[in-house]
């Protein structure tokens, strides 16, 4: 059959559909229905095609390559689909499909506002085109063009509701750091191109820069892609920008764009850069571990639901990079099978995070839509007013808290299993580092559970803390269907880890040359059946059976199942909603324990308590950098006196110096 040759045409269809969506969207300015009836459905087509291309590439494991009649005359654009790109096409397709179903209902909100629907449609589509382009590019030129398209389009989406000053501020910060990232990536490709003499990935892969230049390229790639992926301390734009965008865009940014950055890093460091080095691995483990712990600690202190989710994305990307570090260490130490396991763990985590965070951002959008409020301290009791969104959100929270039988646990388990193979390493420093990484991961997992208990508990349980929350209503069918699609993906990745692992292993094989053993569709035994095994389906079955038995046996037969009355609360006066634990109060113990890591501003005045939890990275890194830039600008201003004579003199001096250098 020719099925395995379908990947590239399908990817082409995806790009064309997204371009078509961008082309029709300007009409939404006049006819708002265009957005619901054309723009989003075209994105849905794009998503299905990308999903098909990704699964095709992973299923057959084929490498497809083509030259496009586009680009510069001597530098035609090259595209490719291979298993590594397939994983990320799959992620993009799955989340985009849900967003395409969810979007029309959510965008209806903007119809009566002053925000331009045309801009929303055009930039969403261009954003998708950019991400697809990054995944498909097979040369550095097309890669950078697509990367910048992705960055710029998403800038306009962050700035979509630009009447609010904080959104403008977030968008500017995002643009600034996106440029820094783009510059670093460009330079990383410059190093690779210098070593190979070509912009084509195929040539770069064959040539290897020497150790020093490889380290430079690694550092540049880490800064460039790490900024986009939100690694500490380059993460500061992320919690500002992701919440500022409309919720379905937040879902795309958190669930997909961060993964595209991850893809770029994998492509450059694991595919193009040449032989792995343990130093790279150690760096990744340290950066990833620090990012994960800091991300989750800050997520725990957020009272804005979308900011909380954004910080949790930082945490997850930290975990993924930590697993990548393990893969690099194992590969450098000559254990390709273990490297493949760590890599599969990272990819599994990426897939899980995309599905879960996509779902949670769509859920946060539904909350925003239904209750017009995203501060946890003003929400409460939504599970009874928005039951479907609420139960979906609970599944997302349990998944993020990494408990069996959900999918978050599968990737966490795989990462732990990879870390537990540290005894096979010879270097004793690494043998200490790897378990330490596992400890950081364990701490992150426990704190992550607290983050999502707090988020769900204050927003959806208890009693409404504001009038908006009391009047919240369930969202429409389309928005629920979008969330349900992601639930389907979560069910597959949670309950059938064997087949999913089999697909992801293709990409790991491409990068490491080793395979990850599976054991049928029911069991997950990545090392050996006797060493470790996990099977979620029996766990779910037993949970359901025991639960059903309990209900059947214990339900009273002669009287009503339960009697409803006022809360007991130790017999005190009936509690009011304001007496509930607030989100800020819930996390107070951890705030006290980890106080040195936060920049806390607490102020108590009679009858009032104000709390601001700031990021230390601001004061330590960004404000000094900003001051430095301003001082440099001051110096440069001295040259700008406004006299033509002086400018001519500067030009002449520059010319002379250049001539001197050339001669």
């Amino acid at each position, binding site marked *: 059959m020719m099925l395995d040759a379908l990947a590239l045409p399908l990817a082409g269809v995806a790009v064309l559909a997204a371009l078509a969506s961008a082309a029709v969207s300007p009409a939404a300015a006049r006819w708002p229905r265009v957005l619901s009836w054309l723009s989003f459905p075209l994105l849905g087509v794009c998503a299905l095609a990308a999903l098909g291309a990704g699964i095709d590439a992973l299923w057959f494991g084929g490498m497809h390559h083509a030259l496009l009649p586009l680009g510069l005359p001597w530098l035609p654009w090259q595209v490719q689909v291979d298993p590594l790109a397939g994983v990320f096409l799959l992620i993009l397709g799955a989340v985009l499909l849900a967003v395409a179903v969810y979007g029309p209902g959510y965008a209806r909100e903007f119809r009566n506002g002053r925000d331009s629907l045309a801009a929303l449609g055009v930039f969403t589509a261009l954003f998708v085109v950019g991400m697809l382009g990054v995944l498909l590019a097979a040369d550095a030129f097309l890669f950078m063009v697509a990367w910048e398209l992705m960055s710029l389009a998403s800038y306009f989406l962050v700035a979509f509701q630009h009447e609010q000053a904080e959104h403008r501020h977030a968008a500017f910060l995002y643009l600034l750091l996106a440029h820094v990232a783009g510059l670093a990536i460009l330079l990383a490709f410059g190093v690779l191109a210098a070593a190979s003499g070509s912009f084509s990935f195929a040539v770069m892969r064959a040539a290897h820069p020497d150790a020093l230049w490889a380290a430079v390229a690694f550092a540049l790639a880490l800064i460039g892609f790490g900024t986009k992926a939100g690694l500490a301390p380059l993460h500061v734009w992320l919690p500002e920008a992701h919440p500022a965008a409309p919720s379905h865009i937040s879902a795309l940014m958190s669930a997909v764009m961060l993964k595209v950055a991850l893809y770029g890093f994998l492509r450059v460091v694991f595919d193009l850069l040449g032989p792995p080095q343990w130093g790279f691995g150690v760096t990744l483990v340290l950066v990833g571990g620090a990012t994960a712990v800091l991300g989750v600690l800050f997520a725990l202190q957020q009272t804005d639901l979308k900011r909380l989710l954004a910080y949790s994305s930082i945490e997850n990307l930290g975990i993924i990079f930590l697993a990548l570090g393990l893969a690099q260490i194992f590969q450098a130490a000559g254990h390709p099978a273990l490297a493949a396991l760590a890599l599969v763990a990272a990819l599994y985590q990426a897939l899980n995070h995309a599905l879960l965070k996509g779902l949670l951002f769509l859920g946060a959008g539904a909350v925003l839509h239904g209750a017009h409020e995203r501060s946890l301290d003003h929400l409460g009791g939504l599970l009874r007013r928005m039951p479907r969104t609420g139960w979906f959100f609970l599944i997302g929270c349990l998944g993020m808290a990494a408990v069996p039988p959900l999918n978050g646990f599968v990737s*966490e388990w795989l990462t732990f299993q990879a870390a537990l193979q540290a005894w096979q390493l010879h270097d004793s420093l690494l043998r200490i580092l790897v378990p330490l990484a596992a400890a950081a991961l364990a701490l992150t997992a*426990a704190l992550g*559970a607290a983050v999502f208990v707090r988020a769900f508990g204050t927003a959806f349980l208890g009693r409404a803390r504001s009038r908006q929350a009391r009047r919240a209503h369930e969202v429409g069918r389309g928005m629920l269907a979008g969330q349900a699609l992601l639930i389907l993906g979560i069910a597959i990745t949670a309950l059938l880890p064997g087949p999913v692992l089999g697909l992801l292993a293709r990409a790991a094989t491409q990068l490491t040359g080793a395979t990850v053993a599976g054991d049928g569709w029911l069991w997950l035994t990545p090392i050996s059946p006797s060493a470790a095994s996990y099977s979620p389906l029996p766990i779910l079955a037993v949970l359901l059976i025991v639960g059903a038995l309990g209900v059947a046996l214990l339900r009273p037969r002669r009287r009503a199942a339960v009697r409803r009355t006022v809360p007991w609360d130790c017999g005190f006066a009936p509690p009011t909603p304001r007496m509930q634990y607030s989100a800020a109060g819930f996390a107070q113990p951890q705030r006290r*324990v980890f106080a040195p890591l936060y920049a806390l501003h607490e102020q108590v005045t009679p009858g009032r308590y104000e709390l601001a939890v700031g990021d230390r990275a601001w004061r330590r890194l960004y404000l000094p950098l900003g001051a430095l830039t301003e001082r440099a600008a001051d110096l440069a201003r001295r040259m700008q006196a406004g006299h033509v004579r002086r400018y001519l003199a500067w030009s002449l001096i520059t010319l002379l110096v250049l001539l001197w250098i050339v001669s």
Partner: protein
Amino acid sequence: MDRVLTLTAALLQPLLLLAAAPLLVAWVRRVKARLQNRRGAPLLTPYRELRKLLGKEAVVARTASPLFRIAPYVVFAATLLAAAALPVLSTLLPGARVADAIALIGLLGLARIMLTLAGLDAGTPFGGMGASREMLVTTFAEPALLLVVFTLAMTTHTTNLASMAASTLAGDSVLRPSYMFALAALLLVGVAECGRIPVDNPSTHLELTMIHEGMLLEYSGRHLALMEWAAQLKLALFAVLTVDLFLPWGLATRLTPLTLLGALAALALKLAALGALLAVSETVLAKMRLFRVPGFLAMAFLLALLGLFAHVILESAL
């Protein structure tokens, strides 16, 4: 035939633990009473309490959502499932393949998340207080527990609890520095996780000191019975986990009536000793202030980490 026998044994072991769990609690109470020069309640009291609660009407707060009524079943089922991954009498345990030690900790995590969510559900201040504090305890206790398991997994090269116990039975020495650190950490974690003195007091009804009780405050009838039973099972589970990891002698490696009987006797003896130890420590120690608890648990975390380091530095000869 062997398969059927193994499966039956695997099904019966968690049920045996479930049935014995209230007895362990009663035993601890009895020893504690004796140490305080009281006679103490009969050993069957916890069973009578459960029967009484199961027969009573369940009262649910009007402010509670459906999650409140689902939570007890999930907590109970998840704890029971965690117990199924634990070799109680025999190391021939198919359940340990379904869920290894990491999954066991994950299942306990699922139970805890549902418990804390239920605490927040009625919208009462004490429920929220208990939930918030429980999350503080678990912030340190869960990673410490994972590290204990990692230390042992590094030695035995498996995370399957049955294989771990079997490997120790087959002659791996437990008299290693890493095991000593891990044991100390596990004891501290067990005390915290099961809500015992000095972290939490299971018999307190002084509102400001409650953790576990605070979350259960709104429960009654069969819901409360399930929650209480799950908590008792958790205590038994931690006791058996300690025994399995560090003192597995007596566990049956073959399924014959004689070995099983021997295993039962050995288990009863070991659990009685552990229970007595808990009673003594609860009598000697006073409950800590809440903000001393992180220090206590950080100590457990550090001990577990030291165990891991001790393993890597001192013991792993390649």
